[in-house]
């Protein structure tokens, strides 16, 4: 695997999957409207080669005004449909503002889809302020810091999430900030020895 690490960037190329193309296209639209956003959760290990399917890609964005959202909605609807509601006011007022996600899929399709929500937790805020920029085939995809993703995956506790955490830890072990990882593990009140066991982390 050829990955280049440069400051807060990870640069690499791959044959893109349908999920990668979806992420790139959606990120381009959000970036066009200067909407600060990050990709997180299950798509991150998949982006870096984990072989598993996912029906959605999680995206968190900074809170945007209704005026900007109206324009964004029109642009998104060139290629996508919102599969939750077809009413822009409903999407904004009753979903996004109430910290509930809306989902967009390619027209005529249901999966995979983009799950978009406004920033709602302190972890989201930290990630939005300190994203890692993945340059995939020259397209920029901002993602949540890997240390945060690994700790959060352990916090989620399902076998799938723990496997994702193990995958990211083993793949990026030499590049991770271990102090930061321990900090996130402590913040999320995960037992450190249990976390190390799940990650296969030996000192």
């Amino acid at each position, binding site marked *: 695997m050829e990955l280049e690490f440069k400051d807060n960037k990870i640069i690499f190329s791959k044959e893109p999957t349908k999920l990668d193309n979806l992420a790139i296209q959606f990120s381009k639209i959000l970036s066009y409207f200067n909407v600060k956003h990050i990709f997180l959760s299950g798509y991150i290990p998949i982006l870096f080669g984990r*072989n598993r399917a996912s029906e959605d890609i999680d995206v968190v964005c900074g809170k945007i005004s209704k005026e900007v959202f109206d324009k964004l909605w029109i642009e998104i609807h060139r290629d996508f449909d919102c599969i939750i509601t077809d009413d822009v006011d409903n999407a904004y007022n009753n979903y996004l503002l109430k910290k509930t996600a809306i989902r967009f899929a390619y027209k005529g399709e249901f999966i995979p889809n983009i799950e978009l929500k406004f920033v709602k937790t302190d972890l989201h805020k930290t990630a939005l302020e300190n994203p890692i920029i993945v340059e995939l085939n020259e397209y920029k995809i901002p993602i949540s810091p890997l240390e945060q993703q690994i700790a959060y995956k352990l916090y989620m506790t399902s076998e799938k999430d723990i496997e994702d955490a193990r995958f990211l830890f083993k793949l990026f072990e030499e590049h991770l900030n271990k102090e930061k990882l321990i900090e996130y593990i402590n913040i999320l009140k995960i037992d450190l020895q249990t976390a190390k066991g799940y990650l296969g982390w030996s000192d």
Partner: protein
Amino acid sequence: MKLDLKELEDDKKRNFEERLKFIDLYVEWLKKTPNSVWSKQQKKLIDGK
């Protein structure tokens, strides 16, 4: 039918541990495999093509 739930639970735990070990093996392979090779295989699996 009578099930030995303890046996099932042990089996589940063993399977999970085996999958974690498999992830280690897969990452080792991934690290020494060119992007063009692993990503082609990944695309086949994820896109179903």
